[in-house]
């Protein structure tokens, strides 16, 4: 069934990607790519369903055998965000079903189209009635009811820090298992020895693509002194030349912001950054296009201090801040100076610094010479510190959340 779901998603990825671009504002290539990823996730977990293993271990007592097995949790409630309307639902639903659970899935009410389309595909897959359920509604009402329901055994949440903390507190009251993926303030460190053009592309991709609306976006760009001025000049030019427009226009590189609320939040942070003394090198303005939409020019702040609010709080838009560092040691210190720990990146040609950074950065995912945003579907996704709570999502590690372990002793 999971394989058939994946096959249909892949066969319809252009149609689904178009819907995604239309409702969320990702560009068409990004939307089609995300739909394809959702299909691959279902196919991956179709295989994982057959690979749920266990252990047979000897006992310390004579004549007794010990079996360690994995079992489903029961009913899993899922609350998904608006920024990945088909990939995140896929990476929650597919492993839950693969490991034998029932699902109550609530998409973001802001972008329910892809989730509804996914649910419609799943509804024809042959699952018994009640194994998969779609519940569209407001988080404060439908989401809270799911979290508080005594027959919900586990909760998988992706969204804001504030909502994640509330869900965590509610789940803990009744000892429900939980997995919370929340915010990020992801650093990209650029060292003196970096390839300048590569570093600029890594920064542009990580900071502004998908309109910066990714929890893994590079929102803090920490640049060492020797390359700082040349990097800032080149990055400013590249950012200024990004084409903002209709998500489904072939010329568009940056689609619109998802809604007016997010647009206003971006504008508030532009004002905050200016009031804190950062230099707005480019962007940060509403844009007019042929049709009325939530268009916003990618914003680059320079001369930032890591203690500024624009460097500490998640903006969730196409807004990046450049912080100057004296050397690698200071850059690493600044990169770790955050309450978050989701993704981090470094641009360098030095094996020594790349290796040291991978070991010492406090993040769940580390990227060397690639953007902080953009991950594979078959390996673990998640962070540490204030970004995440509970077992990882995706890949084989998903079994840690969607199963529980049983140890059986038999005297035969």
């Amino acid at each position, binding site marked *: 069934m999971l394989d058939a779901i994946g096959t249909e998603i892949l066969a319809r990825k252009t149609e689904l990607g178009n819907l995604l671009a239309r409702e969320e504002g990702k560009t068409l290539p990004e939307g089609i790519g995300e739909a394809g990823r959702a299909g691959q996730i279902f196919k991956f977990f179709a295989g994982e369903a057959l690979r749920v293993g266990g252990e047979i271990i000897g006992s310390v007592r004579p004549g007794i055998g010990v079996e360690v097995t994995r079992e489903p949790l029961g009913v899993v409630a899922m609350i998904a965000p608006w920024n990945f309307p088909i990939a995140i639902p896929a990476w929650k639903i597919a492993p839950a079903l693969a490991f034998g659970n029932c699902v109550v899935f609530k998409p973001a009410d802001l972008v329910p*189209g892809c989730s509804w389309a996914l649910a419609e595909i799943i509804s024809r897959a042959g699952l*018994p009635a009640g194994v998969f359920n*779609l519940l569209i509604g407001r988080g404060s009402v439908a989401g809270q009811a799911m979290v508080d329901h005594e027959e919900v055994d586990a909760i998988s949440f992706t969204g804001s820090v504030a909502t994640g903390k509330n869900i965590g507190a509610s789940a803990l009251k009744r000892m429900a298992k939980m997995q919370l993926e929340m915010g990020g303030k992801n650093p990209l460190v650029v060292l003196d020895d970096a390839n300048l053009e590569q570093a600029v592309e890594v920064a542009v991709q990580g900071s502004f693509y998908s309109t910066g609306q990714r929890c893994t976006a590079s929102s803090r760009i920490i640049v060492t002194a020797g390359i700082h001025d040349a990097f800032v000049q080149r990055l400013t030019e590249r950012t200024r030349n990004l084409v903002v*427009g*209709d*998500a489904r226009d072939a010329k568009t590189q940056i689609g619109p912001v998802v809604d007016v609320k997010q647009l206003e939040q971006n504008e508030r942070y532009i004002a905050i950054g200016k009031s804190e003394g950062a230099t707005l090198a480019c962007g940060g303005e509403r844009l007019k296009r042929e049709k009325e939409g939530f268009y916003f020019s990618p914003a680059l702040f320079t001369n930032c201090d890591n203690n500024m609010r624009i460097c500490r709080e998640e903006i969730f838009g196409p807004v990046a801040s450049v912080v100057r560092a004296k050397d690698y040691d200071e850059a690493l210190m600044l990169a770790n100076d955050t309450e978050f720990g989701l993704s981090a990146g470094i641009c360098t040609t030095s094996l020594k610094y790349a290796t040291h950074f991978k070991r010492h950065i406090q993040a769940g995912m580390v990227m060397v010479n690639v953007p902080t945003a953009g991950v594979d579907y078959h390996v673990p996704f998640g962070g540490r510190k204030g970004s995440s709570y509970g077992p990882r999502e995706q890949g084989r590690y998903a079994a840690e959340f969607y199963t529980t372990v049983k140890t059986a002793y038999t005297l035969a």
Partner: protein
Amino acid sequence: MKSNYIAGEWVNSLRATPNINPSDTSDVIDEYT
């Protein structure tokens, strides 16, 4: 209106919310329960 899917059935609710295209706010993709 696009419905919820509960216990194997498509179920409407009294409330429907429009899904708006952020590239063109005059474009309503559909209404969702």
